[in-house]
């Protein structure tokens, strides 16, 4: 009996186009769009040689030291800092106005002067280069003044040396890209709420014909609920797994190396999503379209706060309003995926799982309270 009900429910879910659009088609389209548009996200932050203009006048030609420095830093190679254009003042000014360069340098009264159009990191690096040029010149002058003996070895004193070395705190590199996909997975879990909605609607006699038929059937109520929930969970879990496989292998989004942990979060996330949808549906007497609207709205707000639209918003919320962050189940799911990708230990991952299970228990209990002992005087 139980497995018959389970099988029938599973078939009804598979045949429901509305459910499949939101829980299957929509996430696949969205993740593919994410893949195409976020593929250059990390590259955008990377340093690239800055387009610089230099006023090629007599003063510049006469300052051999500055000229050589600019040429050295503009030479192609790993250490290239600038892509330099040499022209007269009017021409470089036009280039700056038309955004062809980020700024230009002119030698004014023997010292370089920088002209920019806007503030920014590129302009700051240009200024930093000019500052360092002047500072090193000043240091050399000060040393010659105080230690004339050091003149013979002056070039050796200020050899550019590196005093830093990069280290990594984790095995996986920092990337801005993955968090969008993790928030998307969280959103898909909560679109599983549509499954919860469908399950409850087909259990209530006043909402659907199927519900009315099942209410008068001889099957025990708890068996009906359990079979439906299990069928919903099975289909939502399969969708999550298929989506994870698509992300990992087709879109090259790393989900960490522990497959069992990924499956566990998929399962717990699906359960949370279904319980959420069931709770929304059973707890009020609003129209079905209004319930759908509530489900989508709440899911979108939770997904937004877990980083679906603005990268790092989940971290900001965690810093500024930790209670809101901990109570947002979508943020917990996204954070669990992030933990699997970035951290070596599982402490925070399991904290997220426990919180999600507690939330699911609360939502499921509310659903059960509303579902039990329902009697219909008139439907």
């Amino acid at each position, binding site marked *: 009996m139980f497995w018959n009900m389970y099988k029938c429910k599973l078939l009804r879910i598979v045949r429901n186009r509305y459910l499949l*659009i*939101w829980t299957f088609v*929509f996430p696949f389209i*969205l993740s593919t*769009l*994410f893949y*195409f*548009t976020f593929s250059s*996200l990390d590259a955008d932050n*990377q*340093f690239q040689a800055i387009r610089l203009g230099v006023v090629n006048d007599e003063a510049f030609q006469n300052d051999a030291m500055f000229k050589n420095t600019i040429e050295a830093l503009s030479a192609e190679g790993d250490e290239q800092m600038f892509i330099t254009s040499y022209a007269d003042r009017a021409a470089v000014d036009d280039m700056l*106005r038309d*955004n062809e360069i980020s700024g230009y340098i002119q030698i004014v009264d023997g010292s*370089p*002067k*920088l*002209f*920019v*159009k*806007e*503030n920014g990191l590129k*302009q*700051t*690096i240009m*200024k*930093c280069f000019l500052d360092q040029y002047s*500072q*090193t010149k000043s*240091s050399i002058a*000060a*040393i010659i003044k105080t*230690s004339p003996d*050091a003149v013979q070895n002056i070039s*050796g*004193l*200020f050899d550019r*040396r*590196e*005093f*830093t*070395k*990069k280290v990594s*705190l*984790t095995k996986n*590199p*920092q990337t801005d890209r993955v968090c969008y996909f993790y928030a998307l997975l969280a959103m898909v879990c909560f679109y599983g709420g549509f499954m919860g909605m469908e399950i409850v609607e087909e259990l209530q006699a006043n909402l659907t014909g199927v519900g009315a038929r099942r209410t008068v059937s001889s099957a025990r109520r708890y068996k009906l609920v359990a079979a439906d929930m299990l069928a919903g969970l099975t289909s939502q879990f399969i969708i999550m797994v298929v989506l994870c496989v698509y992300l990992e292998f087709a879109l090259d989004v790393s989900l960490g190396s522990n497959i069992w942990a990924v499956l566990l979060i998929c399962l717990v996330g699906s359960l949370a999503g279904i319980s959420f949808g069931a709770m929304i549906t059973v707890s009020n007497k609003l129209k079905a379209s*209004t319930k759908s*609207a509530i489900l*989508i*709205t709440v899911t979108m*707000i939770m997904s*937004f706060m877990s980083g679906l*639209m*603005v990268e*790092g918003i989940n*971290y*900001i919320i965690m*810093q500024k309003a930790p209670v809101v962050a901990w109570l947002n189940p979508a943020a917990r799911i996204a954070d669990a995926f*992030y933990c699997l990708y970035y951290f070596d230990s599982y402490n*925070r991952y399991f904290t997220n799982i426990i919180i999600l299970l507690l939330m699911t228990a609360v939502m499921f209990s509310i659903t059960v309270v509303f579902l039990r002992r329902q009697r219909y005087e008139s439907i």
Partner: protein
Amino acid sequence: MRVFNTCMLIMKRNLGAMLMYIIIFIPLMIVMSILSTEKYNLSFEESKPEYTIINHDITTPITEGLERYLSDKGSEVKLEDDIQVLQDANFFHETEYIIMIPEGFSAALFTDAPMKLETVQTPDSTDSYYMRLLVDQYFNLVTGYHKAAPELGEAEIAARTLNDLSIETAVEKINYTGSTPVSEKLRTFFRFVPYILLMIIILCTSTIMMAFSKPQLRMRNMSSPLRPFSLSMQLILYYCIISLICWVLICLLGLIVNINSLSGMDPRILALLFLNTFIYMIVSIAVSSMVCSFIKNETVQNAVANILSLVFCFLGGIFVPLEMFDSTLSAVGKFIPTYWYSMTLDSICSLSVFTRESITPIMTYMLLQLGFAATFICIALVINKKNQSAEESFGSVKTEIEG
């Protein structure tokens, strides 16, 4: 105006669902404006990347000097010396550059084999490149002074180094427009307008279309004395008025949220920005008139509105700026009107002077958007014509004989 009034009545009954999208949009806009706190200044201001120093060594005048120097050039983020806290902060860009001073660093600094500072950074990022320049410059001057005069104490070396590092280059910031440029906050608002505009217009128009395309209602209308031309005109009037209301509402919202960014702005630039959104509103009406023919129920309506607006926005440079697109994505984007909306927006925001040459590309992009609108309307007319003459048009209605 019976048809028009009926449209308004249907709209009124579905107001809740329409308002829902605006309700989602408002907090999004507020958060966006909170996140972009950039203020325009006439003078040049250096960018100050976030950095963190974790000192595992003893504090010496040299390391104190480094801290003082970096605090002028960046903004220090104090973090707990805990690996998970540091990992989190680096991943989510709370700090761009973590400098860890290893134990024994100060003792080995002036030896032949100095130790190196350990840095955690976003791989090859511009912020970390800048911070590395600053740190290397500081220690190059420190070691330079030590080599030239080994008898100098650490405090004296640090003082001299900081004195040299206080030398700054003159920077002149040129304002070509003579007015305040478009702020990042306002730009972000205008970037997101197509998403909400397209979605709401599709929902508003398709709700009416679904009602009027019901076979029974169509047959009733066809047998009524109402001329088909009048019916179509009243429907078009409704589409235009409801779209205008949405546009005005969204623009007002934008003005209220970004009121502080408007002072000192050239009104011509602001007018161009609004004109661009107005043209996109026309495009949205055209898109919705095209897709409405396929919308038969609420399920498909929500799916079409959401999926279409997301596809248009992702591939059109709304959610991700166009400069981050690779060549393939740009090539695909050119077939989507939102791409030209973004191009227009970028051109308006970088407008330096109002000359014929500078305005021409903006006008071209706007005309391209209108071209897309005209194309979509033509396609909609063809689909409509086909649907009206098609046998399937009343397919769901069975006559008494068939029944």
